[in-house]
């Protein structure tokens, strides 16, 4: 199964090689969606964990034991379909190409599973149709 998690690291834990330990100790593949980590600072990371359900649960328990805050409710990009006019401007600034125009209908389509929630599309939208939920 796959599960997306938001991690907040206290300064002291930034030195732990989290993704390596997840793979070695729990057989969990951790795809880094987004990360902001610097020495001696609070770090933030969004991971997509893939593996056995029990092992993902154990991995989350282990991370919590390190005083990493693990939030399962992650931010998501939301498109207001009433406001969107399918202009497509957002598709040019989306680094993961999660926002794209259907090649036939030229309607906007959004692939939530590949979105890294970088939020570049939000200010690019001329009609304020894109936001992030929490």
């Amino acid at each position, binding site marked *: 199964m796959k599960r997306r998690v938001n991690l907040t690291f206290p300064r002291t834990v930034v030195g732990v090689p989290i993704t390596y330990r997840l793979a070695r100790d729990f057989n969990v593949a951790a795809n880094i969606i987004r990360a902001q980590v610097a020495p001696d600072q609070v770090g933030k990371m969004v991971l997509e964990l893939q593996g056995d359900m029990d092992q993902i649960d154990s991995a989350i328990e282990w991370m919590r034991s390190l005083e990493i805050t693990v939030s399962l409710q992650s931010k998501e990009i939301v498109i207001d379909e009433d406001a969107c*006019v*399918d*202009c*497509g*401007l*957002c*598709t*040019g*600034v989306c680094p993961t190409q999660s926002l*794209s*125009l259907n*090649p036939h*209908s*030229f*309607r906007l389509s959004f692939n939530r599973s590949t979105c890294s929630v970088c939020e570049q599309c939000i*200010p*690019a939208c*001329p*009609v*304020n149709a894109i936001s992030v939920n929490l």
Partner: protein
Amino acid sequence: MEQSISAINAKIANRSVRVLTLLELQKRVAAVGLSQAAQEVDVVTTGTFAPLESVGVFINLGHTDPPIRLRSCWLDGVPAYSGMGAVDLFLGATQEAEPQEERPIGYGGAHVIAKLVAGETVPLRAIGMPNDCYPRATLETQINRDSINQFYLYAPRGLYQNFVVGVNSGEEIVYTYLGPLLPRMGNAVYANPGVIAPLWHSLEAIGIGTKIFLGGGIGFIAWEGTQHFPNQKQLPNHTPIGPAATLALIGDAKQMDKDWVKGCYFRNYGVSLMLGVGIPIPVVSSKTIETLALRDEEIMAPVIDFSIPRRVRPSFGLVSYAQLKSGKITINHTPVRTAPVVSISRAEQVASILKDWILKGEFTLTEPIAPIPPQRQFLHQDVLNV
């Protein structure tokens, strides 16, 4: 095949008219060939839904008691021009709200216009020039489209034949009327929906007085547009290789529909109005069909580098609209992602709605009463030392 516009109108009246949207015509040409398709159609509809800057609305408020002669006026915090008549106003789309009005960032005339079109009520504040005829000094009230006399849209440049593609070769993001252009050619933005747009085809078939779809209601071609540049260089197929002819458009905003009149804002650039525009092209001769059969592969736009903020910006050459719509173009051997700022799906919807109006007999065609000037000087404003 030759036929007059009045002959087409007779077919509209007795419901025998044959109408195709431009995309439907192209499919038909691909299936049965040009000459057969030409035998099967009387009218071809085009459309676009793009952000416009050169557009606004004229409003006549009606007289208050005691009456006022306006000096300054604000509609929902956005200044409106009132230097004409006692209670006539012009609200421009790109006018931004006064900073002290505490409106959201990027709120401007286009948003007020869209609210009025949607039937919403907006606050009006005005200062008068009291005199014997018009003693009132100030006015605070609320208006909506039903409480004002005239409410009509005028776009000095409501349609552009072709346009540019924006890129940015610099190291920093550039904020433009095409939206954000990412550094190091991170994206390329185009603003014309390609062949489905109105002006790629026979400019001879339309002119001043031509009835059109405007903002979900009925409008007319009023004049040549500002920055009209019919002398733009052309490809052998007679389509321009960059921004060319423009049209001024006029229409009753009271009849317009909120789906086709939307305020928009380009961050760190400014406010624009997204407007649906559609023109029916009467198939009066086989030459008309030839221009309507042009494909996106055969029309081109110049790729312009916006990293240099000068009047003349460097060009990376021409790309076709087929390439632009594929999502990727190649500049200097490097692939660059493309994105439209014009809604291609809505452009097609405009053409479909216009087609339905004609099929139902609700919309007839008009003979132009004067041609769009085929020649026009394009002057630059060179600053004089005084």
